[in-house]
């Protein structure tokens, strides 16, 4: 890799590598499918009809563009930088996940697949997948760890209402990574009729590039909106990172704007020093899992260790390979926020702005507030409000030590 890059947006090379990261580390049974998917995606990208249909659905069904909202009370409370929220929480189904699902279901239909599988952690991707399957009349199976099913009950019921079969995963830590293992086992068994809608910018090539492409609508809109509101590009971007799809979607259109500082926020769980966290970039090292090489939480023997975060959507021991690359080349800064800080930010956002943020997004807000306090008033910051927090109210009540029925 050269020392000075002309662009950070060139994407993966033809073999799906972002520098050291990415690639196609999958069982032979899946290789022909992944190659077929890559071919189908390249064809779709070059087809104006595909883009037109996707654009129509994003506008009329998802409700795009999502607003860029100036959070004046939060800005005032922090007393520093101007904080804007990119409101992905206002999308249909309540998170950014639907942007990607809509793109992938159109691909699945083009490829003649009739059965959709997906993994989910917080349930947002599961709900988005179940939604597009209902819309297109396709059979839908969602793999979800038993631990996550317990802490995200409302989303589980929503998926069922939408006609999806939710399969509880009882192997391993019973969270997102195990759900992904099970989805891969299903795919390897049902290769001919099944399309796997991966929910984040991870997995074997071409998924990291494909999911990023479907999510860059976030950053493209934000770029236009902030220029309209402020007459210039923002000074900084902040987004939470589990697998990293909302972050990649916001960041990517700005990667070559050197004056824009870009910050990804990982989940520090109980604190990095406790070992109970989900910060793979800060606390992990490169390894191979789920089809790609990326930073992973692992022990000395290369066994994957369990991640911890109060947010089910960030509770994953890996991260998208393009983030690993952006960290190593130094274009994006990655920091982390603890469970406690995220819960605090959740409450602040609710009280100050009347917006109940997802616990995932609360990590980004916590970081934004921390930074805003120290920055000048003409600093413009865009924070990705990746999802809404209705699904998290049980967890929050527990964290606050309160019964949901009791008065606040």
């Amino acid at each position, binding site marked *: 890799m050269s020392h000075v890059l002309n662009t950070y947006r060139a994407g993966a090379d033809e073999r799906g590598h972002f520098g050291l990261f990415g690639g196609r*580390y999958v069982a032979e*049974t899946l290789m022909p499918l992944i190659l077929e998917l890559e071919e189908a995606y390249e064809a779709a990208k070059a087809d104006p009809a595909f883009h037109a249909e996707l654009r129509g659905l994003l506008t009329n069904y998802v409700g795009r563009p999502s607003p860029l909202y100036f959070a004046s009370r939060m800005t005032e409370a922090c007393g520093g930088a101007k904080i804007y929220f990119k409101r992905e929480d206002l999308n249909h189904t309540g998170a950014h996940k639907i942007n990607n699902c809509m793109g992938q279901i159109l691909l699945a239909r083009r490829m003649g697949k009739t059965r959709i599988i997906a993994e989910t952690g917080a349930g947002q991707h599961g709900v988005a997948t179940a939604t597009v399957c209902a819309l297109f009349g396709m059979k839908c199976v969602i793999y979800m760890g038993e631990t996550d099913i317990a802490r995200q009950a409302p989303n589980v019921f929503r998926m069922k209402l939408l006609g999806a079969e939710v399969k509880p995963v009882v192997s391993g830590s019973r969270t997102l990574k195990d759900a992904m*293992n099970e989805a891969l086992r299903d795919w390897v068994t049902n290769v001919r009729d099944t399309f796997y809608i991966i929910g984040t910018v991870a997995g074997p090539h071409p998924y990291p590039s494909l999911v990023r492409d479907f999510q860059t609508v976030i950053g493209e809109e934000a770029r236009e909106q902030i220029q309209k509101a402020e007459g210039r590009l923002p000074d900084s971007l902040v987004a939470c990172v589990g697998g990293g799809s909302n972050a990649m979607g916001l960041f990517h259109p700005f990667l070559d704007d050197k004056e824009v500082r870009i910050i990804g926020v990982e989940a520090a769980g109980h604190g990095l020093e406790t070992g109970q966290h989900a910060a793979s970039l800060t606390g992990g090292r490169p390894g191979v899992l789920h089809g790609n090489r990326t930073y992973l939480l692992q022990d000395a*023997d290369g066994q994957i260790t369990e991640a911890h975060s109060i947010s089910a959507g960030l509770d994953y021991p890996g991260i998208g390979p393009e983030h690993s690359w952006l960290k190593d080349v130094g274009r994006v800064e990655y920091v982390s926020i603890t469970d406690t800080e995220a819960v605090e930010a959740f409450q602040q956002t609710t009280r100050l702005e009347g917006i109940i943020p997802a616990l995932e997004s609360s990590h980004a807000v916590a970081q934004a507030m921390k930074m805003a306090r120290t920055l000048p008033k003409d600093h413009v910051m865009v924070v990705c409000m990746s999802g809404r927090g209705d699904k998290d109210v049980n967890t929050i009540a527990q964290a606050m030590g309160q019964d949901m029925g009791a008065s606040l």
Partner: protein
Amino acid sequence: MTAASTTATAATATGAARDRLAERFAKLKAENRGGLVIYTMAGDPDARTALEIMKGLPAAGADVIELGMPFSDPMADGPAIQAAALRALKAGMTLQGTLDTLAAFREGDDETPVVLMGYYNPIYAYGPQRFAEAARAAGCDGLIIVDLPPEEAPELNEHLDRVGIHLIFLTTPTTNEKRLPAVLKEAGGFLYYVSITGITGAASAVEDEVAQAVAGIRAHTDLPIAVGFGIRTPEQAAAFARIGDAAVVGSAVVAQITDSLSAEGAAGPDTVARPLALVRDLAAGVRTARQ
């Protein structure tokens, strides 16, 4: 096969970089019979018991041993082998421990080829070059890395080539004619034909379809072909060993170990005897499969 036999003779003559796999497949051909490849997980349910089982395999009739390297996230394995991997890890098995198990086995058996089978991350963490050297020193003949397709294999294979370990590849019902040359380019030792699309231990395949697929592969390579996934009974083993050059049995053997354990997952009185009894039955089946 011709190529394999020639290599075997040459290697034996020089004494350097001995190729136990080529020797074994040449011997099977000379005896005009199909071979039996048996999979067992290192460290399951504990290091000592697993070594005892492994030591008993050649006498029970295993022609080639696949020694599983436990991994926390075995994406291509069914419930039986997943559980075995977790038991092994819980009992403290590591990649180094797996190599130590192999080295201990080699003290009493310098003939039976041993192929290590698992996933890439533990090897990547160990360091591909360091691993290749340590594995060869322990007596490893081949390697099957489930999540390392030919496209990603050169980064490991360059080190394996240097020490004379074969990187063995799986081909599946989805490996089409267009893709097969890419697989064969990196492949050594033998080809492992996965007779079904699915995970280990799933339902078994239809014989006619497998025979057709194996014939298709033979048109492209002289490498011996082992057929596996879903084989449970001596009859199935015989049928598939007749179609290929060997039949691979894994989950059914592991299931015998699982069934012999205490409620806490510790070795029971039959933990060594039960899998070996199954292997004896399978071997008897395979030996009826004259080609």
